[in-house]
């Protein structure tokens, strides 16, 4: 009996410690996000303008160089969706509506989501690995001692770059996904081009694209902040860099899905 109470007590303390750890991480993430927003949007108004050189470099790094993989994945998603829906639709005799289904699914949900998930893996991981290595090799300490703010120097360019490029990539992913569905629909599935396009245009609304873009802005914030936070808290060596890079991708992906759920339900009730 005594050992049982001891066991429960021990577990209680352990979970209390785990909860404290979690809250500490959340508050750390919050403070870093606040500092980043301050450095990016408030400081330029107070006479410390952002330098655009590093932002361009990062935009090329995270945006332009990601187009290939984003195009490929969203095109294939469009193709797959067309095949999957054609099978069900043909049983209802509504094969012409494949275009509408693919279009709505891609621009409302899969375009923004798949782009963000791909970018969490491609860009979030590289942010954590790069800045984590800088932390380990004292480069971030060197910045601080040179009276340069690491947040402004390292995170702001990446933040601005992704904030601009992720919505751009999302729009292109939307286009490629719809194109993928169209190609399969009009060739393999044998749907006529005119009804395919008509039904698609009927179903898709501008608000769907706009909500997708709003989501992608939120996803960009999640990817940059989680990636940077997990890099800045690294202490130790190469092992920790690897560990935090992995966590960065996992946590970003989970947070992206949760944010997606929140926004989807919000838009569902608003519109």
């Amino acid at each position, binding site marked *: 009996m005594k050992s049982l109470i001891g066991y429960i007590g021990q577990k209680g303390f352990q979970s209390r410690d785990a909860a404290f750890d979690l809250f500490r991480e959340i508050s750390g993430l919050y403070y870093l996000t606040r500092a980043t927003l301050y450095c990016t949007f408030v400081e330029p108004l107070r006479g410390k303008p952002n330098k655009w050189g590093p932002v361009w470099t990062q935009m090329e790094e995270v945006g332009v160089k990601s187009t290939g993989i984003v195009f490929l994945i969203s095109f294939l998603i469009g193709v797959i969706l067309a095949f999957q829906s054609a099978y069900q639709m043909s049983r209802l005799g509504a094969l012409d509506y494949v275009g509408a289904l693919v279009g709505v699914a891609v621009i409302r949900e899969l375009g923004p989501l798949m782009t963000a998930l791909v970018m969490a893996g491609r860009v979030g991981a590289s942010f954590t690995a*790069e800045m984590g*290595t800088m932390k380990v*090799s*004292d*480069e971030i300490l*060197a910045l601080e*001692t*040179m*009276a340069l703010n690491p947040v402004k120097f390292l995170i702001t360019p990446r933040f601005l770059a992704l904030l601009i490029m992720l919505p751009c990539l999302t729009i292109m992913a939307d286009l490629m996904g719809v194109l993928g569905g169209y190609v399969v629909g009009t060739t393999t599935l044998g749907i006529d081009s005119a009804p395919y396009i008509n039904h698609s245009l009927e179903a898709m609304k501008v608000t769907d694209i706009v909500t997708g873009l709003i989501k992608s802005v939120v996803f960009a914030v999640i990817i940059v902040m989680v990636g940077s936070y997990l890099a800045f808290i690294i202490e130790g060596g190469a092992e920790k860099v690897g560990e935090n890079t992995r966590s960065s991708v996992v946590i970003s992906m989970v947070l992206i899905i949760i944010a997606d759920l929140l926004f989807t339900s919000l838009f569902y009730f608003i519109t």
Partner: protein
Amino acid sequence: MIVVKNLYKSFGEGDKKIVVLDDFHAQFERGKITSIIGGSGSGKSTILKLLIGAYQADAGEIIVDGEDMTKLGNDGLNEVRKKFGIMFQSGALFNSLTVEENVALPLREHTDLNDSTIRIMVKMKLEMVGLRGAEHLKPAQLSGGMIKRIALARAIALDPKIVFYDEPSAGLDPISIGVIDKLIMDLSRKMWITSIVVTHEIPSAMRISDKIIMLFKGKIIADGSPEELENSSDPRVVQFIKGDPDGPIPFSKSQVDYGEELKQMKM
């Protein structure tokens, strides 16, 4: 000039609390070279990190040109840091930037000089460390000694009043050590720079220092000119300077008796 009074620093909490620095006090004067020596784990690097504001002291004062650094906020600290140049042990050069961009970084960020002036200044600093012509290399393409010299060039890019050197000559060949020693001496004698050198290279410390502070387990055990240290009768100082394997400073870090520990191990 930096005056440090009654500085304390410890890490960890409760049972695991380790006092790394116990009542450290020192006076670093303009134009003088002060070396801080001591074995590994004696608190040398901790002092350096406290002085540059990377750690917060538990108690004590660090007064830089009349301002107490321990009481300053972030903005004030950054103002003080602009007077500093720091040469890190690992160099801490930015790997994504070329040598020229590394040395130019403090100039670009803290001055309004135009690009051609900055390039000229970078060339001057690189000539001082004997690496003119390495402008377009990346840090990964440099040897350890070259990285330290570039790090020195970056540390003095803004012509600071105070320069900290963290193990400036560790792992270098004798000629490079000589070059770095001469640079440190030239900088402090000719440009009136306050130099603080953390090192365990005794010959180099003896050669360049005006004053040497020796630490042992976070406490100052000797403080004086190189001659005074050489003539010291403290067995710990004598052992450290001569590099004797036997003496009052233990080599083994473990707290438990070796024989006891072996007996308790199960087969």
